[in-house]
């Protein structure tokens, strides 16, 4: 694949200084097209300028960043959105601001998907995770460009690390049962087996690490058969919606991963209190008071809670994130006497 085919690099060519300075997003659309034409005029004489003018004469087709619920990309039920800025404070796009009702709908979608996903063979789940890695790899340049906007230092390496992380977790799908489960020696004529089972619907508050952190919290949850509702990074939500596009084209059944963008403070307590959520991952809750509130709410129906100290995403993750959302089922089977 050449660079010219990459959507990210192509866009960088077409408007040399325009990408950052021109306003993006639906709300700004009519004005934005005009501004790009002006930018092209400034680009100076020669063929380059003509090419820019030709490109700029097209209407700008910009992506609307929506939510990802049940395999579809709806806008927020509330109709709200919020402006997302780059690390340098420039406007990038408007992202949907999910409401508690979107969170509720996402939980319904995740619950609906749980039966099929947890019932799929580990081999099949592993294949699908590997497929996500393939799709992510094919959009490498687009993610690198989006991560650069969020202020990531070496965006290309971050994307590589995220792809590698997915491949790493994909390999675990049919091995975790052997590591976390056991054939137990018992004092009696029984075959005694413990096997790890997925816990159900997991609400995940993703860390402020737009791609690697996000992949590192989603992959361990779904590889073992759970489904999840993810609240994306509030500061940098755009790569998470682009990741949702990857998930939607990876044979991952709709509803296994649902992505909400918006205020963590607004969404997390509702998810933590929801009686149809079985576990919460509070990795991305930076505010200690909010985390404590979520933990209290989660106690109401004895949810599993994961609240790690700020992790180093580049380190070997180990199996802890997988086992946190597994519950051990032990079967006693009489043996012939």
């Amino acid at each position, binding site marked *: 694949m050449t660079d010219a085919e990459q959507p990210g690099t192509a866009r960088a060519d077409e408007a040399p200084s325009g990408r950052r300075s021109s306003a993006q997003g639906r709300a700004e659309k009519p004005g934005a097209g005009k501004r790009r034409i002006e930018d092209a005029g400034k680009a100076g004489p020669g063929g380059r300028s003509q090419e820019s003018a030709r490109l700029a004469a097209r209407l700008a087709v910009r992506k609307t960043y929506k939510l990802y619920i049940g395999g579809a990309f709806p806008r927020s039920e509330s109709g709200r959105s919020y402006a997302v800025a780059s690390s340098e404070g420039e406007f990038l796009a408007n992202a949907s601001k999910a409401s508690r009702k979107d969170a*509720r709908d996402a*939980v319904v979608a995740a619950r609906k998907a749980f039966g099929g996903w947890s019932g799929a063979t580990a081999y099949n789940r592993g294949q699908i995770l590997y497929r996500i890695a393939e799709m992510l790899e094919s959009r490498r340049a687009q993610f690198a460009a989006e991560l650069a906007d969020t202020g990531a230092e070496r965006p290309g390496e971050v994307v590589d690390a995220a792809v590698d992380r997915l491949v790493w977790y994909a390999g675990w799908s049919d091995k975790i049962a052997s590591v976390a489960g056991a054939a137990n020696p018992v004092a009696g004529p029984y075959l005694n087996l413990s096997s790890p089972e997925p816990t159900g619907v997991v609400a995940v508050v993703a860390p402020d690490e737009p791609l690697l952190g996000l992949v590192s919290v989603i992959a361990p949850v779904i590889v073992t058969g759970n489904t999840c509702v993810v609240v994306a990074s509030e500061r940098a939500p755009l790569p998470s919606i682009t990741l949702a596009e990857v998930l939607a084209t990876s044979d991952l059944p709709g509803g296994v991963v649902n992505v909400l963008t918006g205020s963590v403070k607004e969404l997390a307590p*509702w998810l933590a*209190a*929801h*009686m*149809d*959520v079985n576990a919460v991952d509070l990795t991305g809750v930076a505010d200690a008071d909010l985390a404590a509130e979520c933990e209290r*709410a989660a106690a*109401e*129906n004895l949810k599993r809670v994961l609240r790690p100290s700020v992790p180093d995403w580049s380190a070997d993750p180990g199996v802890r994130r997988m086992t946190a959302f597994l519950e051990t089922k032990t079967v006693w089977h009489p043996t012939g006497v």
Partner: protein
Amino acid sequence: MTTPLADVASSDATLRAFLHGLPGVDRVGADQRAAMLGTRSVKATAKAEAVDLAIRMVDLTTLEGADTPGKVRAMCAKAVHPDPSDPSVPKVAAVCVYPDLVALAVDALAGSGVKVASVATAFPSGRSSLDVKVADTALAVAAGADEIDMVIDRGAFLSGDYAKVFEEIAAIKAACARPGDGHDAHLKVILETGELATYDNVRRASWLAMLAGADFIKTSTGKVQPAATPPVTLIMLEAVRDFLAATGRKVGVKPAGGIRTTKDAIKMLVLVNETVGEGWLDPDWFRLGASTLLNDLLMQRQKMATGRYAGPDYFTLD
């Protein structure tokens, strides 16, 4: 209306002339009005009242070939105490079962105030002889059913044999009588609107059933899709309103099948209030036939009481 209503049923010709003389239904208009009324926002205390009213209107139904006495007993217990953890939840209106399970339900609900309804007349297809249908009804009435849900013969209706449908309904109505104690079983007539093809037919079937003596008209058996859609319910409510104006007799309406969420139920209540008025916002005049709806109503109730979203794990499966 040229024919006085009393004489309408005197012959097949007058019945046909009357039913075909009813004004046609504007399909687009009915769909739009039902959709428009479905956008009403019912929140907070109004919603709390609507949820409780909807619970009181539910006909908790199990009509499966696999129904067991145990399942019916469990459902009766749920009808009396829909949410055992919250005694403030009202009882449902009735339970609805097959005729052979009526005696069991009557026993389980004795003294609770919850009524027992039974489907009859070769439910759900209605494809049997009149004798068998009457015997089916008599079985349920003898077992103590308070309400009989009969199906009309859609084949006869669609082929234009209105007199046959009329006579069947009248015969079943007669079979609902309990001469001894004077407490007749209420007759609900199921039109099975999903098989009637047009809204005009829904209006005609509604009038036909009411003329023949129905106490309630009910949309569907729940075995055919589409079942109780809002436009169909709207048309039946209009028929009931017009019938009251023409004859002075009040008839109830029961949408059944496909109403699964609190939102659907509240939309139905809005339709009732806007079409026939508050007089029908009562379990005596409006029912919701459903099996899964009750759990959603209970979850909404719990959400309003506790402030957190409820989960289905904490409610019974049926």
